[in-house]
């Protein structure tokens, strides 16, 4: 049996041998050889009884030693078990003490070596609470001298601190991921609470999937305390759980847009009765492959009741072959209109920032030309859309050909011609190429004013700043640098308006993709279970519904949801925030035992 070497703990193989010899010389030689080979010598008595006694003695000693070892092990185990109960508490105490000393090291020693001075950032609203806390600390430590709190002037820029609760925290985290707001500039997180779920819902618009997201988020919210106590380290679960209020809002808004698009798992609901009717006779229907329901008044008959479906898209569109063509036009226009509103809102926030920081130069040289450029070009585009929606009707108002659908000009072509200063060409020879009287003149005027804004944005601010710096000869003013910076900003803004406006078309693109995916899933998966004429169709449907549900949650809710989330985030970070956000601040990180302990736990 291998024995354990007490020094190294390795297992050593030992061989035992008995040496018989005669005479003293052989004895000394054998001894020397054994010592040379580092063998241990044990005396072996001559008599058998002596040997037996020796063996018994050795066994006893072995047993005693084993008992001692056993007892020592038990004792050690007990001591460790007792300590194990306290070790977590000790770790926490040690970490707290370490953190306190680390922070105390930041303090400066006063000249009289009697007290410590610290410079720190405090939220102004919390001043009283801090005085109270200092007083409580003095009482707790039993000293007679109270600490003094003074406000001092500094040129350093303070950290940014937003008070958030568990609801607003998620939105603030989204904004902070792009960049922490500069000290005292407008916080876009407040508006993000509503604009984010809204823009998400436009891309996700399906009431069924919205319900799934909403139910999941509500389960997270209702079981909040239990799930928080679990302290899971699965990162993905933590992301979803921390965003539960965001997901709940996105679900509610998606249910709303789902009802507007009239899309529940790719089927529409007919709650109010459709506003369309078939005008063909029974005989004609039997012989045509498909026909168009004409909403215009032909004779006394029209395919359209006259009053639109009260809420949302008419349910007849789900069985129309040109559903996508119709919805495309609607969704694209809505995307551009919402995009222009969102961007104008961003520019207005930049005005509020300039007003707060008392920079009239910015208002005059940046805000006004920016808003004029954006609204005269793209605000006008949105206005054209509204005008086209109201000024043209199928068959024309009272049979007027000029207001019929045949003569409605394409807004895109009109806009391109406006930018190129070309004249519009009519759709048909009898039609008017313009939508209202004086359109070409007005468009040229708008274009010229917008073009004037570009040099206004480019040159006004540098020259004004140069004039202001000339009256202060001490300050260093580099005209070339300011000019280059202003040039970059102007180009960025002007090109940005065009590219960002087009970028909002992703609201249309993603909503189309989502609707089509949802339809494909129903047609390819669930419809197989509905195509059987016998009772075993029910069993097949049972199995297929499981597959359909799994794919719905996996592809449509998770994948499309993440995709729409990403695109909404991009719209907020790039298209909205580049209009006003500086984002050069740094976070206010107060001393907190909770954060320190949480970080230490996460590092383990």
């Amino acid at each position: 049996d291998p024995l354990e070497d007490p020094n190294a703990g390795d297992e050593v193989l030992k061989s035992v041998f008995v040496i018989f010899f005669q005479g003293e010389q052989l004895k000394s030689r054998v001894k020397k050889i054994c010592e040379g080979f580092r063998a241990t010598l044990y005396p072996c008595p001559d008599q058998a009884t002596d040997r037996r006694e020796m063996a018994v003695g050795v066994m006893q000693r072995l047993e005693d030693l084993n008992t001692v070892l056993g007892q020592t092990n038990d004792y050690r185990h007990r001591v460790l078990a007792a300590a194990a109960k306290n070790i977590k508490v000790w770790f926490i105490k040690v970490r707290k003490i370490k953190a306190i000393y680390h922070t105390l090291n930041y303090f400066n020693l006063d000249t009289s070596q009697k007290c410590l001075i610290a410079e720190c950032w405090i939220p102004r609203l919390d001043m009283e609470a801090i005085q109270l806390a200092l007083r409580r600390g003095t009482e707790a430590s039993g000293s007679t001298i109270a600490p003094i709190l003074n406000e001092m002037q500094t040129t350093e820029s303070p950290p940014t601190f937003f008070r958030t609760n568990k609801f607003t925290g998620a939105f603030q985290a989204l904004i902070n991921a792009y960049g922490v707001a500069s000290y005292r500039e407008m916080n876009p997180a407040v508006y993000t609470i509503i604009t984010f779920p809204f823009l998400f819902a436009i891309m996700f618009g399906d009431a069924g999937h919205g319900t799934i997201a909403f139910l999941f988020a509500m389960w997270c919210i209702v079981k909040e305390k239990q799930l928080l106590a679990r302290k899971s380290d699965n990162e993905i679960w933590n992301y979803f759980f921390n965003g539960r209020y965001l997901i709940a809002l996105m679900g509610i808004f998606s249910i709303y847009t789902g009802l507007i698009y009239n899309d529940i798992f790719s089927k529409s609901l007919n709650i109010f009765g459709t506003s369309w009717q078939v005008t063909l006779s029974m005989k004609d229907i039997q012989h045509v492959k498909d026909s168009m329901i004409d909403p215009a008044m032909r004779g006394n008959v029209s395919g359209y009741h006259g009053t639109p479906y009260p809420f949302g898209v008419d349910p007849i569109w789900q069985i129309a072959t040109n559903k996508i063509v119709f919805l495309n036009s609607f969704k694209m226009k809505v995307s551009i209109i919402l995009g222009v509103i969102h961007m104008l809102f961003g520019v207005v926030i930049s005005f509020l920032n300039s007003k707060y920081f008392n920079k009239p130069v910015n208002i005059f040289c940046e805000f006004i030309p920016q808003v004029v450029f954006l609204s005269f070009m793209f605000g006008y585009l949105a206005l054209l859309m509204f005008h086209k929606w109201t000024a043209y009707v199928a068959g024309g108002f009272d049979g007027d050909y000029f207001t019929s659908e045949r003569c409605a000009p394409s807004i895109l072509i009109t806009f391109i011609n406006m930018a190129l200063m070309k004249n519009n060409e009519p759709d048909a020879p009898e039609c008017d190429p313009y939508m209202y009287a004086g359109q070409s003149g007005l468009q040229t005027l708008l274009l010229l004013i917008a073009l004037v804004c570009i040099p206004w944005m480019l040159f006004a601010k540098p020259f004004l700043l140069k004039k202001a710096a000339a009256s202060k000869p001490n300050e260093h003013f580099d005209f070339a640098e300011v000019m280059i910076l202003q040039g970059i900003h102007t180009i960025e803004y002007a090109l940005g308006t065009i590219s960002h406006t087009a970028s909002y078309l992703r609201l249309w693109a993603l909503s189309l993709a989502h609707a089509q995916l949802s339809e494909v899933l129903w047609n390819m998966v669930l419809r197989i279970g509905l195509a059987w004429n016998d009772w075993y169709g029910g069993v097949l449907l049972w199995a297929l519904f499981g597959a359909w549900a799994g794919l719905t949650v996996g592809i449509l809710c998770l994948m499309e949801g993440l995709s729409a989330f990403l695109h909404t985030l991009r719209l907020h970070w790039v298209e909205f925030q580049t209009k006003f956000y500086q984002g050069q601040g740094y976070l206010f990180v107060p001393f907190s035992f909770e954060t320190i302990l949480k970080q230490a736990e996460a590092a383990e």
Partner: protein
Amino acid sequence: QTCLIHFIKRYCKPNPERMALCGPKLSLCCTVLSAWGIIQLMLMGVFFYVRSVALIEDIPLEEEYDQMSKLHTDMENGYQQNAYNCWIAALLYLVTLCISVQQFWMNNKSTYRV
């Protein structure tokens, strides 16, 4: 021989309660899926029963018909059969719900006992 007895004693303890067929996560998934299935399939059955136009593409029909009456009968049968199929599937999901809820409770009990 003593080693063999020792081995049997360690690994073949008698099990007084039945082990669950599926783990806690699978039974929770199946419970949620079954509840969803029951609600949605009941509603779909009702919509097929009232001959909703939205579901017209889901009933099995031929490509072409020569007679109107044949189209009518096929549509009526299609709607009726699909309504029954949906309700049969909903019933099957009711059974699945009972099984998965029972599995879920068994899983919960065994974790508490340990």
